[in-house]
């Protein structure tokens, strides 16, 4: 049976061409409506057409705004496609044993300097508590992928806390501990939390509670694939509305790393 990742990649690839036609055609229309382009001036002169008048008509009828809408929408769709392609990307990237505590620390630094994050809120205003147990061995993981998952969880937590402030000081707690043959990573916030029916669906592709245009609904589903398929681990969420959310990741500790 074809995997979800394979299906997503196939679809993403097929959608790219029509998407390109839409955005490029819109861009051509925009350019060919312009008064400044010499080729437009030439044809207008041949037809005895006053380009400035035509331009005024376009403006009055808001055509440039509609074309801009097409361009923005196709650019948004292109971002979703790029995310979907990540589903299938084979993890040929190098795996070497790394300290998960270090990966978590580095991701916090990354989040603090992320431009997208800063646009919506100041990540540095969030208190970060680290509770790392020292008995977790180094694990062979694809660092960029684990960072992507953690960054995604940090972003979601920060966004949720910024959008629905609870009056408490926003806090994110990162935990790392060992549970038998697993390394357990947690990202917990004291934000608004989520209803049970939302918690059940957060890992589904395209499920989002963010306002249109803000989230693609793919961040957590990509995270899910990274953890379960690429790292043979588990990821789940625990949450009570009004009492924050806690994402728990379990990554298997290979035998040779456990000593």
């Amino acid at each position, binding site marked *: 049976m074809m995997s979800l990742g394979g299906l997503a990649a196939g679809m993403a690839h097929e959608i790219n061409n029509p998407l390109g036609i839409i955005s*490029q055609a819109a861009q051509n229309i925009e350019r060919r409506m312009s008064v400044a382009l010499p080729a437009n001036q030439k044809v207008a002169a041949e037809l005895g057409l006053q380009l400035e008048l035509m331009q005024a008509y376009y403006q009055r009828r808001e055509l440039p705004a509609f074309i801009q809408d097409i361009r923005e929408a196709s650019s948004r769709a292109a971002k979703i496609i790029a995310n979907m392609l990540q589903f299938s990307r084979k993890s040929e990237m190098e795996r070497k044993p790394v300290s998960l505590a270090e990966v978590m620390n580095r991701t916090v630094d990354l989040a603090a300097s992320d431009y997208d994050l800063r646009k919506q809120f100041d990540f540095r205003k969030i208190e970060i508590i680290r509770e790392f147990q020292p008995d977790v061995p180094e694990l062979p993981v694809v660092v960029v992928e684990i960072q992507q998952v953690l960054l995604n969880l940090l972003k979601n937590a920060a966004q949720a806390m910024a959008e629905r402030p609870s009056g408490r000081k926003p806090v994110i707690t990162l935990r790392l501990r060992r549970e038998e043959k697993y390394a357990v990573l947690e990202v917990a916030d004291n934000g608004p939390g989520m209803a049970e029916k939302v918690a059940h669906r957060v890992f589904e592709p395209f499920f989002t509670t963010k306002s249109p245009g803000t989230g693609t609904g793919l961040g957590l589903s990509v995270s899910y694939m990274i953890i379960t398929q690429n790292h043979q681990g588990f990821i789940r969420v625990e949450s009570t509305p009004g009492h924050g959310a806690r994402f728990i990741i379990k990554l298997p500790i290979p035998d040779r790393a456990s000593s």
Partner: protein
Amino acid sequence: MSTSKTVLIIEDEVKLRRAVAAYLEDSGYRILEAVNGREGIARIAEHQPDVVLTDLRMPEMNGLEVVTWMQQHSPQTPVIVISGTGDQHAVDTSLAAGAKMYLTKPIVDLAELDVAIQKVLG
């Protein structure tokens, strides 16, 4: 901008090819078009374009074969690969075969393509 440089666009999806052609025509380039790699190399042999843009996945002769053929027959002509196969392997293979640049589909802003062409033309 006025330039007499010739750009060959090899792409099997006609509307995509036309959209790119229309844009580059407006930028002042002379445009040649081909529907697959086989037709593409015939155009190259016949017209010696200054730049070649090629898709990767096409019937009859694919983009990678075009790049390889050009390395042997027209190594001085720069090739830009434009493909939706955005995985690292496709990028690496295309560049290793001799492509000057790799752009990922969809190109949502054609001005980027304009800049890429100017860059490979030096």
